[in-house]
């Protein structure tokens, strides 16, 4: 974050509005680099350990990244507008406790509890967006504050207790169905569907083009008739809703409502976004890149574990990867200018 003093991207917002040919688009996507890195990592681990390249293991990796992955979709949207969200993990944790407690203690039917959790998370997003846009305040500060608010509310409301004995509908997304010989969880499908949906929305709708335009230059976007205020608040609200879905996925994965959850997920989601080639300065990147970014983290964690490498090295390698990814982003910007 020390590089925030560098001038914003000089790329014109209009270059993103043109529809390039398919072949050209594939070659020049900022996701191409991360994708090559992911494939190389997969090849490396396939050669290193014979347990890596199995359907079951890939299903496992997707399950392991679905929560952070879903958070990272929201994070990508916000970062594309040149914002940042430090509160995503804490908001998700609060959402998961709301859903779990409401349903487990019988105050609400399970589906109503889930709906309430989604609304609460979207509400946090709305509040973030409104503070960023209307006061206005820097996103870093707003979401840093909201991180503490949501964290505290989680612990106050849960009374530091893990909520177990959850009714069936809450963990339904953790159930599996067989695909060939591989068991896939429904939650993995939800995550993949969300990635595809938001990728479509960003690349092929007016709303998506407006998000990129806003990130490139809010002033230019406004002068071109984009209602930037509504757009910003909308993006934060959609992100909040996605955190609510992540909360449900989290519950389905662990089978409990855990007040300690998500404490590093804000930085983990930013890591995924950056690894996926999205620029922290806004206007450049994609959610498919973020999907590749979370998979890179998941593949390294899983592959190194299968090889028997201690977990602290996994952290070390993730750190190096992030610095490399941002370095490459900076170099490519300098060349572009």
């Amino acid at each position, binding site marked *: 974050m020390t590089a925030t003093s560098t001038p914003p991207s000089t790329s014109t917002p209009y270059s993103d509005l043109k529809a390039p040919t398919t072949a050209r688009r594939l070659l020049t996507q900022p996701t191409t*680099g991360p994708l090559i890195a992911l494939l190389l990592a997969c090849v490396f681990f396939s050669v290193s350990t014979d347990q890596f390249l199995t359907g079951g*293991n890939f299903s496992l990796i997707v399950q392991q990244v679905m929560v952070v992955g879903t958070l990272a979709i929201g994070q990508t949207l916000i970062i594309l507008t040149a914002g940042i969200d430090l509160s995503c993990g804490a908001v998700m944790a609060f959402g998961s406790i709301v859903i779990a407690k409401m349903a487990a203690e019988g105050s609400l039917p399970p589906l109503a509890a889930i709906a309430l959790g989604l609304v609460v998370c979207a509400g946090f997003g709305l509040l973030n967006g409104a503070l960023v846009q209307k006061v206005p305040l820097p996103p870093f500060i707003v979401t840093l504050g909201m991180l503490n608010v949501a964290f505290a509310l989680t612990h106050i409301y849960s009374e530091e207790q893990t909520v177990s004995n959850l009714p069936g509908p809450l963990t339904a997304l953790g159930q599996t169905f067989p695909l060939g010989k591989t068991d896939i969880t429904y939650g993995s499908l939800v995550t993949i569907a969300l990635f595809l949906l938001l990728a479509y929305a960003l690349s092929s709708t007016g709303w998506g083009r407006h998000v990129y335009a806003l990130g490139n230059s809010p002033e230019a976007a406004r002068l071109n008739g984009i209602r930037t205020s509504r757009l910003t608040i909308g993006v934060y609200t959609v992100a909040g809703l996605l955190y609510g879905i992540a909360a449900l996925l989290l519950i389905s994965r662990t089978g409990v409502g*855990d007040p300690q959850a998500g404490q590093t997920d804000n930085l983990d989601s930013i890591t995924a976004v950056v690894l996926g080639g999205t620029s922290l300065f806004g206007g450049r990147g994609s959610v498919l890149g973020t999907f590749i970014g979370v998979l890179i983290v998941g593949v390294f*964690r899983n592959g190194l574990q299968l090889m028997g490498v*201690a977990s602290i090295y996994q952290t070390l390698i993730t750190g190096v990867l992030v610095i490399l*990814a941002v370095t*490459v982003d900076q170099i490519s910007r300098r060349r572009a200018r």
Partner: protein
Amino acid sequence: MSRTSRLPSSLLRAAACTGVAALALTACGSGSGSGSTSTGSGEVKVGLITKTDTNPFFVKMKEGAEKTAKAEGVKLMTAAGKFDGDNAGQVTAIENMVAAGVKGILITPSDSKAIVPALEKAKAKGVLVIALDTPTEPESAVDALFATDNLKAGELIGEYAKAAMKGKTAKIAALDLAPGVSVGIQRHNGFLKGFGATDKDVACAQDTGGDQSKGQTAMENCLQKEPGINVVYTINEPAALGAYTALKAKGREKDVLIVSVDGGCTGTRAVKDGKIAATSQQYPLKMAAEGVKAVVTFAKDGKKASGYTDTGVTLITDKAQDGVDSKDTAYGLDNCWG
């Protein structure tokens, strides 16, 4: 400015990431001591999952597991949460270890309840699951538990403090762990039981998270509330040293009795230096060593370890009191961890 300028950056990115893959290789070759990448199918694998990588208690545990694994000719895999309380990180580690085909998993659960569904899944796949140091809730979620008897650890220092006070009226401060954590509650209750006191006799109780600076703040506040405090029970030695610093600032370090639990090397040296009067020493190395042995037995003849095994606790002090069994700090330093 056009999109074509991004092509070289993509290649650069890929090249950079290849470099990291190479780094991964180096890390595994030099760092972990378990870097054999060829995984023969006959090799027995044991997984150890601790709360964190960095706490000396868990470092010692890992050391015990590594030594025993080497001696028994089995392969040890290790993992840890990112922070104390990182349940999702431990769940991921369990899944990866089961995928790697471990015979058994040894785990110090970060969240006694939240970890249960993941452990049940591992057990369903035929993996022997043993909790080290911290029990799960319910305890039946694991096959066996190898841990310190924390109630007894508390009782020992309670009895010691009672004897050391020689009938003087005690004003007790309790520097506890955190609400709802069983280890902290058991030690606290054990201390009161050993001392023959109840919670009503505690003049000041504060949570410290087992942290030295929080222990100091808690002690400063307790002295503010009740200047006459003369017995301090602490959850662990970092909290005890924090209390000592606070007492020293008030010139009270000589006439206040501090007792603690853990037996880490820093803590044991503090007992030797007279900063802490006595501590109940526990043995993480033994927990892990016994755990690895249990998995080896299971791999050999299919016999599963079960129930609770007390890995022992010893009262360490240089000012022994009549009627209370203890060992001196020379013994304590020979057996300490960290």
